[in-house]
């Protein structure tokens, strides 16, 4: 006669009530799914935000005085400036000892009747050919390169805008409203940042074409050894400008996100508690239904410890199974979660928002299995203390 291991007996017992076991596993899987996705989001969001900030190439941005949150959005999303500032500010900032480099920028927006359903906005970022490429040296080119002439009728297209407009190096582009032709001299690789959707033109060209002499922003790269806080205070003394440091931007965004995160973590905790109660209920019900079987096991020589081990193992199998399904689901749907979360948040960095790695998967499996061990204690103890004669007679045990 073939001898069955405790694991086999436990598995067989669970398979006898397939639907109930499946639903319990699904309950745990949902909790594990939420847990992995949330921790993955926690890691992914911050990592992507840091990457976005690094890709900017400068640590501080000066914009004309306005709301700091709008300024932060401008910095990260590449929108338009609210006000203009005098070009001389760039020179005075560059003279500061803490500064490694500055780059003046002018963002302009025109209405493009050919964009979208009933037209849309086309944004152009005027950048200084001498300083901007140096600060943004990490920007990779798919084809071509930066313009070098300060007043060239030339443009560098971000990856997505080049794809949308079907432009290649050497092609022409017509600035809407202004009817000015520029030649595409470079196309950037996909960076996953706002640069993908930007059309870069030389600063002087933008100033000439749009008839604006001022700037909308100045990017500043600070020396590594400089005291950022002291330098920021110094910049605030400049008239009518707003200083946005990347540490401020990051703190503001992370504060906004953490509020939402605390709420979602609370929901996840409730989901885990509900799943845990579900496991206790399922296993306890199973124990009560199998009273006679447990009694027979005991009368055949099984010790209380053996019965405890059997029931405990069933609980662990349920939880570990749910954990595996849940983490698998989280991995498979990470991209979908990314898209959903991106639609819900007021600001999302351009990289992946949900980062799930092996460590996180193992940690979740560990947590869920531990929950299983804890949930299984009471039903296992209840089963272990059943008296064989009482259970075989079918008497109700209180």
């Amino acid at each position: 006669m073939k001898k069955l291991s405790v694991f086999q007996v436990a598995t067989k017992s669970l398979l006898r009530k397939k639907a109930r076991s499946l639903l319990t596993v699904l309950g745990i899987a949902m909790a594990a799914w939420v847990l992995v996705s949330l921790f993955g989001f926690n890691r992914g969001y911050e990592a992507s935000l840091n990457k976005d900030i690094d890709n900017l190439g400068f640590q501080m941005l000066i914009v004309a005085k306005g709301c700091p949150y709008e300024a932060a959005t401008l910095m990260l999303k590449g929108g338009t400036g609210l006000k203009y500032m005098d070009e001389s500010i760039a020179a005075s900032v560059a003279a500061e000892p803490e500064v490694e480099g500055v780059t003046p920028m002018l963002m302009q927006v025109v209405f493009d009747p050919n964009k979208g359903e009933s037209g849309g906005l086309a944004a152009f970022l005027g950048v200084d050919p001498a300083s901007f490429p140096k600060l943004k040296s990490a920007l990779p080119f798919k084809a071509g390169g930066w313009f070098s002439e300060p007043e060239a009728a030339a443009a560098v297209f971000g990856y997505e805008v080049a794809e949308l407009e079907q432009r290649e190096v050497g092609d022409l582009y017509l600035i809407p409203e202004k009817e000015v032709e520029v030649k595409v001299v470079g196309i950037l690789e996909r960076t996953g940042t706002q640069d993908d959707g930007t059309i870069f033109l030389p600063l002087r060209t933008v100033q000439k074409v749009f008839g604006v002499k001022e700037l909308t922003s100045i990017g500043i790269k600070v020396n590594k050894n400089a005291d950022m806080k002291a330098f920021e205070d110094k910049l605030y003394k400049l008239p009518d400008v707003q200083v946005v440091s990347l540490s401020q931007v990051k703190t503001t965004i992370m504060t906004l996100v953490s509020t939402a995160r605390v709420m979602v973590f609370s929901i996840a905790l409730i989901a885990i508690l509900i799943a845990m109660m579900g496991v206790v209920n399922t296993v306890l019900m199973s124990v009560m239904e199998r009273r006679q079987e447990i009694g027979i096991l005991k009368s055949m020589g099984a010790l209380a410890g053996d019965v405890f081990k059997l029931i405990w193992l069933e609980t662990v199998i349920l939880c570990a199974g749910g954990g595996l399904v849940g983490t698998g689901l989280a991995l498979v749907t990470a991209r979908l979660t990314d898209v959903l979360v991106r639609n819900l948040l007021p600001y999302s960095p351009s990289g992946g928002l949900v980062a799930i790695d092996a460590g996180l998967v193992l940690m979740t499996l560990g947590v869920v299995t531990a929950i299983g061990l804890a949930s299984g204690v009471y039903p296992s103890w209840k089963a272990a203390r059943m008296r064989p004669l009482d259970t075989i007679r079918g008497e109700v045990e209180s």
Partner: protein
Amino acid sequence: MRNSNAKALAAATAGALLTAAVLLLHAAVGCDLNDPDRDVKRLFPGSTGYKTLYVSIAKRGGDELQKKIEARLGDKFTGLFETADVPYTMYEVYKGADLIGYIHGVNQKGTYGGIQVFLALDTSGTIRGFYFQKLTSRAAKAFRALSFGEQFQGLSLEDFYKYDVVSGTEDPAGPISRIKNPDPGSEKDFRAALRAAKKNLILVDEFLLGNAHLKYFKG
């Protein structure tokens, strides 16, 4: 029984998730009507509904089919919007249960940017409407004028086969030669519009009309 229900539920959930993922992946490419409900009604005033089909050369025949289509066009496919995996969105238009026509748009490279040319066709593949959904050109106003699009009405792939998209000539001169360029200074955009119309008709013939017009192709 309960088992089969659970399996069906799991399969349906997985299917829904996969479909959502596939749609998300495809959302950024292709050439769709800006507002299908409104645009279908405008192009086919008597219509009561439409069906959207997604097809691609890669799925229907791969490199072999692309070569065949290029031969019918008389030009090679180039650029991001002329690869074998571009998903073409085709609309079948219905009046009640009756199919009354098709709408299809293609992307085409223009002088200053991407051009999107849409054709409304009857069930035999004859053009009943032509318009630019997207066009960046110095002569955009003239090209978008109704009078320009009306010149395409009544033409079919049979007419376009005689038009060489590379040289921009029709031999012998026929209905395509009679289409007037509204702005001689924008010849490149004019030719792009004709090439887009021919490409559009070939794709509709291949994917929707069962190559009904292939017999007119003189290779």
